[in-house]
Structures are given as C-alpha cells and as structure tokens.
C-alpha cells in the first residue's frame, strides 16, 4: 500500500529525515517509535502533504501513485488520514459543517452524489457511538475550547467518518489519561479491517498495549535504526532509548 | 485589609529621591532665552564646523514655525522657552589629560551617584561618558576601545575628530523637522555621546553615558549617535539623574541608532530624572526622541527602558525596519507615582521583508499618576511576512491613578501578522492573600508581585543595570511596593 524509499526531507533548510525506508501492506499496523526530535512528526507531515516540509530526495509511493505530487486534499480523497498531534482549533466552523463538507468532497472525488442530510445525520450518530464521543461536542466549533482528550477523540471520530485506507496517528496518546487512551484505542481497533492499514506514531509503549502492532520501527536522528516485531516495543519500554543510542554508538 | 494597604501605599509613596542633591561648582552659563544669536553662540563656543552651524540654524528656523504637540494623554503646563538657559557648563572643564584634572567636586558628584570616573575603581566591563549639564566631563576606557577601532567619545569631540562620520549620520534617523522637541534639540544640542563600531567588531564592554542635570533653570539637550557598521555588535547603556528643585526643568534629547547589515545594537536606559515632590512640585520634563534604523539586512536593534523618574515623560523609542530579515525589540517598564505623568511606548515601522518586531510594555501606576502606553505598528505594502507581537500590561496600585493603552496598528500587507494584547488589572487580593498565608507581609507581597511582573523586561538589562533598576523600582514605589 505504502512504499517509502530513501526519503530525505528538511524544514527551513535543516535536514530532519535522512533516508527513510518503509513498506506497509493492507491490513497491517506499524508503530513508529523514537525519542523527541527524531523526525516522527516530520514523517507524518510528508505523508500528509504539509508544505512546511521540503522533500529533497526519495520517493513515497501510495497504491502505485507518486504521493508527493498530490495536494493534501487529493491525498485525503485517496484514503490517507492524519490524526494530528495538536489538532487545530477553527473558531466559527461547526464540526457538523466541517464533516459534511469533507465527506461530500470525498464522495465527489469518487464520482458520487452528495449525501442526503438524513443519511448524514444517521452516519454521524452511528460513528459517534462507535468512538464514544459526546453528542454536544459535534455542535461546537472544530476543536475550539476542547480539552486534550476531547480533541483526540474528535480526531478518531473524523477518522471513523472518512473511513481512510491509511491512517497515521501522530502521538494520539499524548496528553490522554488511561480511560481516554482506552477509548481512543478501542475506536481505532473497531475501525480496523483487512483492507486498511495504520501507522501509529508514539513515544511510549503504553498505547501499543491496546493497539497491537505487526511491526515496530525505531526512528532516531532521521533514520529507522531498528525494525522488529512487537517485542521491540517492550524492550524499549524496559530499557529506554539510551540502549539503542549506545548500540548505535558501538557500531 | 484595605486600610492597611492604604497605609502601606502611603508610606511607600513617601519614598525620597536620593539623587536630589546639588553640586556647588562654578558654572559658565549663557543668558536665558533662545534666538539665532544663542544658537550661533553655542556653535561658536564649541568651535563647530560650518555644516553643523547650518544644521542648527535650519533646525531653529523650522522650530520657530512649529507648535508644541498636544495629542498625548498629558497635562503639560505652559513652557516658556525664553525662560530657559540653553548652555551651562562647569567652568573648570578644560581639555582633560587625565582623571586627576577632573574637578574634585565633580568627581565627588559622580562618586555619590555611584558612577566612578576612575577606571581602576570601575568594573572593567563598562566604559563611561559622563555628561553634566551641557558638556561631557570624562570618557573612560577610550584608549582600550580605540585599539579595536571603536570610537566612543563625547559628541563635541566626535565633531572635532570625526566630522565626516558625524556629518554623514547626524539627523539621518531623526531629521530636525521630525517633531517640535527634535527641532529644538537640533538647534541647541550641547553635547552627548558618539559611538562608532567598525565592521565585524564586537564591542567587548558595555558603553555607557551618564547624564546629570546640575545647574538651575537650564535645559539639557544632548544628542547620542550610535553607528554599528556591518556585522558589529554593541551594548549601550544610559542613565540619568537631576537635583531636587521646585521649578521644572526641560530635558529634550535625541538618540539616533544606525545598524548596518547584520549589526546588532542593544540600547538600555534607566531613566531616573527628578520626578518632582509628592505634591507634584518641580521635576524634569523629559521629552525625548529616540529612534533607530535597521538599515541593512539581518540587522537588529533592541530597546530596553526602565522609566521611573521625570515629572512628565514623552518618549517613544522607535525602530525603522528597513533591511530584509531585520528585527527590533522594545522592552519597557514605566513606573509613575505621586503626580508623575508618562506617555511612552514605541513605533515599529516595517519596511523590509520578513521583518520582526516585539513589544513588551509593563506600566505600573501609583499615587495620583497617569501612565500611558502609546505605540504604532505600521506595516508597509512591501513588507511581506512582517510579524509583530505586542503585549502591554498595566498594573494599578491605588485608586487615584490612571493607566491607559493606545496602540495604533496600520497594516498594508496581506502576508503580515500584527497582534496586540493588553490587560489592565490591580494586584489580585487572592495573590496577596496567598502570600500572606505563606507568611509574607503585604508589603513584601506587593514587592514580589511587582518584581515578577517586571522580570521579563529587567532580565533584558545588562546585569549591573538590572540590579540598579530593581533597586530603583523599589525606591520609586517605596511604601506602595515593598
């Protein structure tokens, strides 16, 4: 589904990603871990098309297409969803209006007609229940005045509404208490099908207790320095990142 | 509780001005009044070249046509410009070869002010130019600085020794026609400091000018000109005091700063002119024009000011951000007490692309004083990606004072972002109670809170100055603040 080859990228002239290689197949869950500043969020930005990040070298192929040529909205239509680490507040724009517009744009891209208001409300109700989001939240402006947990839940709700094929969850666990974490993780698990894939970006192992990854990658100084099965996450939890840093230093 | 606070407020506001003494030295003064002859006399006295006399006369002729501005939030008593002495100098001030030749009375004066003119006694980090009334009496560390090509001298000396530099930059940032007080200063300025940092030089010590008004009935009109050539750096300090007198005295200075490509100038001032007594009698009228230009790309100018003195302050240190990627900062603490009035702030004029400016202003009003922030942020049409953030906070101590905020924003570029935030509040009773509960007296609590409130600005001052400024804040608010 997603193939990343020798990806180099910079922000404001500073190289952040220094040759990333990654392959993801439908139905898989990959976790990307790493200490602060290792380039995890930058990678998410490259995949979702944020122009803050400049790709200097390498390829990102998504379902056979060159992803880097596509606008952020085209990537969204193609099934890519980014759960933001810091969801943006948009005063004055209600979640309902926001989601309706987004959903209809997705349908338009697929050549379908706009959804009828009653179907839309039905869909909203269904997905709200799925991710256990408070009904009153959706009547408010996008993320405005939301607590940290509410913002993250709202991200998962949007993911449920848009049914992406590739979801990237950027530090979705940060700032969440254990209950909120469980709810968010449940939401993600319920949305999982053999056809879609998920990249979970996280600093801690605890989210991976709930969302079980097929592969775990460690990103360090702009490179994936270690890839393994789920047990790698456990090891990191136990030993911290210093262990990897040391191992690298010894090489 | 309130009673007690009032009492403390009262006690504090009685705090005395400790620089109010007067030095009895023989002075040479001109007769009162201002006309073309006086302007010519000043110029002749200083043996100035023709271009400078011309500059003065043009300014004087322009000034005569101007009216005093009345738009600020100030109540300024009528000033009789013919009742002011425009030139006063210690008589014995001849060309000084060494410190020993400085009049012992004068040395003592500066010792009392905590400004030692003796280089051995000074902390090595600071070079001082001491100006009393109209003339500079001594510049320290001149030779050390000269080795690096840095020129740091009195303005008069610079006119004599570096006339081309003076001619090139004088009035280039603040033209004589700029405003009423700028025109007046340009006509009659007496002395001041001049400083030039050559290409690529980082000035190794703080340069500082200390201004003292001593004589009665005189106006002080000094001029400071700072030129930082490409990729140079300088940190410049200015301090001032005046004796306690019942009549008002006028101080109308000009400061011009030029920062060439990649140069950085830090200008810090602690202004402590005599503020008048607690009934509002006497005190300095401080009407000052300070402006810098970030002329070259990537240049930077930073103003930091602590304003505690003067009966009336009218002062807007400003920056013209002309070079691309240039940046400017303005940090200000203005304290007013008793019957003081302050109308101060800054102007940031964004001309170049990617220019940045930051304004942090903290006003504290006590007694019967009025304290205004007035600022202009202007973004010109071609200033793509210009950014400004302004934060103006006012703190009120007592219910007879006023705090005002007048920001002006003029944006003419769609990629620019200008943000202004302001708050006005008094010290929260819950904050004081919290301190009380932890065993801190109300007076100390107010002190602590004010300290915290001004920290952001005081931190920008050079170490030695910051300590002085903090002491000054305490004295200014003594009783109303711990």
């Amino acid at each position, binding site marked *: 589904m997603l193939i990343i080859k020798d990806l180099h990228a910079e922000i404001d002239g500073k190289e952040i990603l220094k040759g990333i290689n990654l392959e993801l197949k439908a139905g898989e869950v990959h976790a990307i871990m790493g200490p602060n500043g290792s380039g995890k969020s930058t990678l998410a930005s490259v995949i*979702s*098309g*944020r*122009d803050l990040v400049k790709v200097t070298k390498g390829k990102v192929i998504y379902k056979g297409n060159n992803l880097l040529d596509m*606008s*952020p*909205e085209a*990537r*969204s*239509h193609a099934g890519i969803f*980014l759960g933001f680490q810091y*969801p*943006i*507040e*948009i*005063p*004055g*724009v209600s979640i309902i*209006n*926001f989601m309706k*517009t*987004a959903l209809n*744009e*997705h349908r338009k891209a697929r050549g379908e007609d706009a959804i009828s208001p009653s179907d839309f409300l039905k869909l909203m109700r269904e997905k709200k229940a799925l991710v256990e989001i408070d009904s009153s939240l959706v009547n408010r*402006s996008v993320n405005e005045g939301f607590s940290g947990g509410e913002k993250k839940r709202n991200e998962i709700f*949007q993911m449920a509404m*848009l049914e992406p094929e590739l979801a990237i969850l950027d530090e979705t666990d940060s700032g969440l208490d254990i209950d909120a974490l469980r709810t968010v993780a449940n939401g993600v698990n319920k949305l999982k099908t053999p056809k879609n894939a998920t990249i979970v970006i996280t600093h801690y192992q605890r989210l991976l207790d709930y969302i079980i990854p097929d592969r775990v990658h460690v990103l360090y100084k702009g490179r994936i320095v270690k890839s393994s099965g789920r047990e790698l996450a456990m090891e990191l939890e136990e030993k911290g990142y210093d262990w990897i840093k040391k191992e690298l230093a010894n090489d | 509780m309130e009673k007690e606070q009032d009492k403390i407020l009262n006690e504090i506001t009685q705090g005395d001005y400790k620089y109010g003494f007067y030095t009895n030295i023989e002075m040479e003064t001109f007769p009162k009044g201002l006309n073309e002859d006086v302007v010519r006399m000043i110029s002749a006295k200083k043996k100035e070249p023709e271009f400078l006399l011309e500059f003065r006369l043009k300014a004087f002729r322009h000034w005569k046509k101007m009216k005093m501005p009345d*738009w600020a*939030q100030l109540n300024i008593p009528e000033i009789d410009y013919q009742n002011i002495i425009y030139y006063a100098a210690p008589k014995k001030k001849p060309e000084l070869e060494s410190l020993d030749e400085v009049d012992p009375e004068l040395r003592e004066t500066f010792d009392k002010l905590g400004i030692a003119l003796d280089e051995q006694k000074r902390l090595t980090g600071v070079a001082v130019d001491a100006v009393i009334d109209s003339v500079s009496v001594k510049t320290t560390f001149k030779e050390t600085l000269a080795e690096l090509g840095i020129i740091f001298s009195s303005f008069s000396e610079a006119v004599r020794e570096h006339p081309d530099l003076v001619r090139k930059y004088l009035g280039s940032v603040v033209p004589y026609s700029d405003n009423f007080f700028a025109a007046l200063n340009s006509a009659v300025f007496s002395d001041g400091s001049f400083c030039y940092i050559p290409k690529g030089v980082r000035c190794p010590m703080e340069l500082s000018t200390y201004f003292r008004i001593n004589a009665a009935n005189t106006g002080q009109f000094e001029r400071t000109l700072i030129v930082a050539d490409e990729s140079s750096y300088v940190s410049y300090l200015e301090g001032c005091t005046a004796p306690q007198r019942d009549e008002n005295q006028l101080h109308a200075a000009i400061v011009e700063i030029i920062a060439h490509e990649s140069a950085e100038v830090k200008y810090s001032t602690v202004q402590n002119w005599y503020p008048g007594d607690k009934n509002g009698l006497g005190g300095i009228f401080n009407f000052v024009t300070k402006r810098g230009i970030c002329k070259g790309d990537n240049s930077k100018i930073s103003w930091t000011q602590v304003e505690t003195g003067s009966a009336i302050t009218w002062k807007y240190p400003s920056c013209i951000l002309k070079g691309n990627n240039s940046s400017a900062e303005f940090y200000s603490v203005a304290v007013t007490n008793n019957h003081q009035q302050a109308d101060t702030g800054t102007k940031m004029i964004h001309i170049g692309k990617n220019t940045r400016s930051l304004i942090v202003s903290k006003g504290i009003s006590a007694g019967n004083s009025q304290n205004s922030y007035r600022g202009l942020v202007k973004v010109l*049409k071609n200033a793509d990606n210009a950014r400004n953030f302004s934060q103006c906070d*006012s703190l*009120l*101590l*007592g*219910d007879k*004072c*006023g*705090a*005002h*905020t*007048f*920001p*002006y*924003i*003029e*944006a*003419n*570029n*769609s990629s*620019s*972002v*200008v*943000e*202004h*935030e*302001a*708050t*006005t*509040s*008094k010290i929260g009773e819950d904050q004081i109670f919290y301190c009380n509960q932890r065993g801190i007296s109300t007076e100390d609590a107010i002190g602590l809170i004010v300290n915290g409130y001004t920290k952001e600005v005081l931190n920008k001052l050079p170490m030695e100055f910051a300590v002085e400024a903090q002491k000054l804040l305490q004295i200014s608010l003594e009783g109303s603040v711990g």
Partner: protein
Amino acid sequence: MTEVLTYKDNKLDFEDMFRKSEKTNGHVASFLRSFREEAAGSFIKSGLPGQNTTKYKYLDLDGLFSREYYYRFQQEIVHFDINHVFKCDIPNMNTKMQILLNGFYYGGQDSLVELQGGVKCGSMLQAAREMPDIFEKYYSKAVGKANDGLVDMNTALWRDGYFIYVPKNGSPGESLQVVNLVLSERNLFLQPRNMIILEEGAELNLVVCDHALSRKLSLSNSVSEIFVGANAKFDYTVLQNDHNSASQINYNFIDQGRDSRVEGNIISLHGGLIRNNHIVKLSGRGAENYLGGLNLTDGDQYIDNYVFVDHAVPDCYSEQFFKGVLDDKARGVFNGRILVQQDAQKTQAYQKNNNILLTDHARMNSNPQLEIYADDVKCTHGATVGQIDEEAMFYLRSRGIPENEARMMMMYGFAEEIIKKIKIDSLRERIEDFIARRLRGEMTRCENCSLLDR
C-alpha cells in the same frame, strides 16, 4: 424646495444652510430652537472635524463633502406607494416595519402609531408635537456636549427621523424594523435624527436596514439617541448593505440605566463609505453592553467603526468584538476607546478587533484604546491583523476539503463568531446566506435593492 449643498475651499457654507433652515422653521417645536441655535453656534466655531484628531484620522470628510449634493427641509411628495417599490423579503421574519424615505418618516405623519404594550412609534417631528413632555425630557440628553461638528450639524439642521417609545415594563411583542430608504433623481445629503426610549423594565428588539434604492450619490449624517432605562433590555441588529455611491456617517448615542442590558450587532456587508460611531454611556450600576461588528469589504470601500464606551459608574460590564475581512483595495478602520472613570470600580471591559487582509492593496488601521482611572478593574483589549491561518487551512485540506472551499470555510467561520450572536433566527439565516454568497462573490447587494434597476 431643494437646496444645493455648498462646500468650497474645504469649508461648508453652514451659515447659509442654517439661515435657510430657520426660514422654513415654522412647524418645528419651539423648545428645539435653543438646541439648534446652540449647536449652530458650536459648529460655526469648530467646523467639520479635521483629520488631525485620532477620532477622525482616516476619514476623508473633505473628499466626501466636496461632491455635489442636494438637501431638503421638507419631505418630498412621492407619487407612488413605497410599499410597491420596496418589500423586505426575509421569510418568516415578523416585524413591524417603519420606513424612513430620504430621512423623513414615511406614511402616518399625522399621528404616532400605537402598538401592543403602549409602544408608540412614528415620526420624530410628530413625537415632539404629540408627546412633548417625554420628548423634552430625553431629547439631546445622550448627545450632551458632543464636541463633534458632525453631530452639531445634525442637531442644528435635522428635520425628521423615527421615534420609538416603550413605556415602563412594556414590550411591543414583536420585533420592530426600520428601513432607511434613499430614492432620488438627485444626489442627496440627509440628516435624520432618531430617538428610541425604553423606560424602566421595557424590552425592545429592533432591526435597522439601510437601502439606497437609487444609483445617485447619497451622504447621510444621522444621529440616534437611545435611552435604556433601569432593568430594560434592548437588542438591535443593523444591516448595512448599500451600493458604492451611498456614504453614511452614523452616530448611536446609547445611555444605559441600572441593570439594563443592550446588545447590538452591526453587520456591514457593503457600502461606499461607512462610518459608524457607537457612543455608549453606562450610567447605572450593573449595566451591561455587548457590541458586535462584522464587515466584509472589497473594491474601494471604506468602513470605519468608532466605539467609545464610558464606564461612569461601578459594576458595569462591556464587551466589543469587531471583525473585518478586507479584499481588493478596501480600507478598514477600527477605533475603540474604553474609558473607566475613577469611581467605576469592579468594571469589566473587553475589546477585541480581528482582521483578515486578503490582498496587499487592502489596508487596515486598528486602534483599540484603554483609558483607566479606577484600580479594581478587569480590562483587556486585543487587536490582530493577519491572514487566514495556514495551519487550519492544512487541517481542512488534510480532511479532503479543497483549498478554495477551505478558504471559504475559514472566512465564513471567522464571520460566524459575530453572526451567531444575532437572536432573530430568520434574520440570522438570511445574513448567513448573504455572507456565504458574498464570500463566493455571487452577490454584492440585497435583492430588493435592485428592484428599481429593472
């Protein structure tokens, strides 16, 4: 008689106007005379306000007055029913509509109309005749010493306007609507004078719409006095949606009594030049004032809002929130001043002005001011000028919303923060629709206004 406005060498021939006015003064209530004379005297001294004051810094009155205008001291007889020409078509909006035609109250000049709850409305002149006691009690009290040439000029020369009176604890039961129509073959200069009185405990919802029907130039210098008694509630929405030849300078003087509440929203969608002056005096403890403003400007339009809120007594609350979107070469000005007087302890005052510039030719000047003489207060103000948040744009696009649509949503959301405060649903929906279409560039004016263009 139609008169020509004479303006030469930056000076209005006011004395000529006043002389002519006095000649045709027969039917004006006599007690108004002293006000007129006093105002005329101070105008002669001051003249039109100059651009050297902060208050009028950006307003080019000289340019405005140096065009050709005509004015009248009496209503022009129209030979058709205005209701055939103009109909407000906002669906399901139940309002009692009154019309000012060229600054004169239209229809029913002979007596005031009495509505439910003892509410009276009609022509100012008629009110002066019919309710002299109440009229005299209030007239010019909110204006006071205006120290403003334009206000003085209105006081000296006004001939009519609308009048609304809500008695103690009264309420008309439905919203009232005032429509200012301008319809003339000639360029017009108008000076309506309006008065709204809410006695203690009264309630009123008012909608004011401005519609210049003819394409000729017009300049309106209108003054309204609004008195809101103790515990009274006044809610008003002003919709300014005029064409480019229409210029207006409005003064709303609001005086609020104890525990009263006033909420106003001024939506400026279109107009050649608009200057609104909101002058609020909170003179009773516990009074609350909420003022919202939204302007969407493009072309060469100029929109200027001046706000002055005077916290004269303790325990009052005020909030001003103005937003602007400026496109093309539009020019916007916000000048907001909060004054907290020495005794006005426990004041809370909040002011905010946010603007988006869409082009490099659009200009915005924002000048929020706090002037505070009391120490136990909570006051903040903030102003921003910037552009659409790029972070938010990316967020929307990452959800599949195309760039143009995302931009529209952002602007709409920006406007919505003001629009959502309008309480009359049908009116709010109409304005939302206006704004959506306006932002898409599909519409520049209210449909009805183009009726005469057929």
